[in-house]
């Protein structure tokens, strides 16, 4: 019987057969397997690509601050050279904070997740796009993710799939959006 090498499988990941130590085997619909294997390949390529790391590092320098401690947690913070917290800004209330969730900091540092910046106007565009095309009012927070999808999709093959997590509903945001678009609601 094999023994788990590392208890923290999130950090080490499963082996090439999908095993976390002695536990595992893939429990995935057969039709999704090619996509998952593609995703894995892209992930490993990006991790090994110096150009990717350079881009990520540049974005981190300009957009995600550096580790600091605020409100009882250590996380990436917008701050000046002396550790004074900078004013964050976002059109969405849920993102208008000078820091990010500590787990995101960790995912970023371990290289599991790539974070990209999205501007207010891009999020507003994406918000309207989803309303028009799908009749779904997204929250302003995931509208940022949607804006990134809009940027990436045209560069991808027709058979490639993007999964986007639309984590909120925009009925709470219609007044904010209305104000920005010049409507009095």
């Amino acid at each position, binding site marked *: 019987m094999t023994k788990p090498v590392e208890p923290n499988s999130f950090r080490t990941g499963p082996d090439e057969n999908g095993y976390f130590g002695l536990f595992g085997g893939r429990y995935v619909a057969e039709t999704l397997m090619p996509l998952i294997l593609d995703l894995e390949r892209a992930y490993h390529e990006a991790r090994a690509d110096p150009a990717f790391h350079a881009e990520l590092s540049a974005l981190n320098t300009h957009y995600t601050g550096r580790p600091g*401690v605020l409100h009882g947690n250590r996380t990436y913070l917008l701050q000046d050279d002396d550790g004074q917290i900078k004013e964050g800004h976002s059109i969405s209330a849920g993102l208008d904070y000078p820091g990010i969730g500590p787990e995101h900091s960790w995912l970023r540092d371990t290289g599991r997740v790539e974070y990209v910046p999205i501007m207010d106007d891009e999020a507003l565009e994406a918000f309207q796009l989803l309303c028009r095309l799908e009749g779904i009012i997204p929250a302003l927070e995931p509208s940022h993710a949607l804006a990134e999808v809009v940027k990436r999709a045209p560069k991808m093959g027709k058979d490639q799939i993007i999964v986007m997590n639309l984590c909120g509903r925009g009925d709470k945001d219609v007044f904010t959006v209305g104000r920005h678009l010049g409507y009095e609601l």
Partner: protein
Amino acid sequence: MTTRIDRRFAELAAAGRPALVTFTTAGDPDPDTSLALLRALPGAGADVIELGMPFSDPMADGPAIQRAGRRALSAGQTMARTLAMVRAFRESDADTPIVLMGYYNPIYSYGNERFLADAVAAGVDGLIVVDLPAEADDELCVPALAAGLNFVRLATPTTDDRRLPRLLQNTSGFLYYVSITGITGAASPDPTSVAAAVARIKAKTRLPVAVGFGVKNAAQARLIGAAADGVVVGSALVQAIADTLDADGRASGHTVEAAVGLVRELAEGVRSVKKSPAAA
């Protein structure tokens, strides 16, 4: 290890009176005025000096100290300048203890090791870091103690008997009892409940207990001082500075004198307390 703070509280206990602990924000309203005031504090009767390290997000402080921090930061105050201020003060005062008080991020940003080394070299005696709980002692508290600094912690009316020992574990110099549940400079403390709280804390520790948050004048300082080993006055002092500033927030000719005058009154209040002298 005996520090300036230990020695000062022992002297005052032997003399049978409480300590006057003053708080001002480093660099408020500007570096020169702030240093001039710092130098004048011991002569006016401050026994222990708390010097605030300004921070953009001072979540434990009320409006008066928040504004002081903003004034200092707009006047260009940095951690390096705060440490330089202590160094300058030490050139002419070798005995008055200085406690740097503030929040963790500016220290963390400066670099913990570098900060501790520079603080010790500048002549700092203790630290109060409001947003570092006992659970984070390995972060800064334990290294600070190892560097020879006192690490002063805050206890509040909601610190119960289960929490108190944990909090006292690595506290040194003195314990700062926050007399109200709230921010600095808010409600005035009630001397009876303060006396009860101080007695409860002193049953658990030999450390001196200083009481603050809301002490505004000599009469209050006297009442609170009778029940504690020290009285901390911050917001009232910082407000006295603010009251002398011009419309643009700049110091006027009498800024230092106004603050010094209040410290003199407070010192009279504290010095009128007669306790039976304790063995040092």
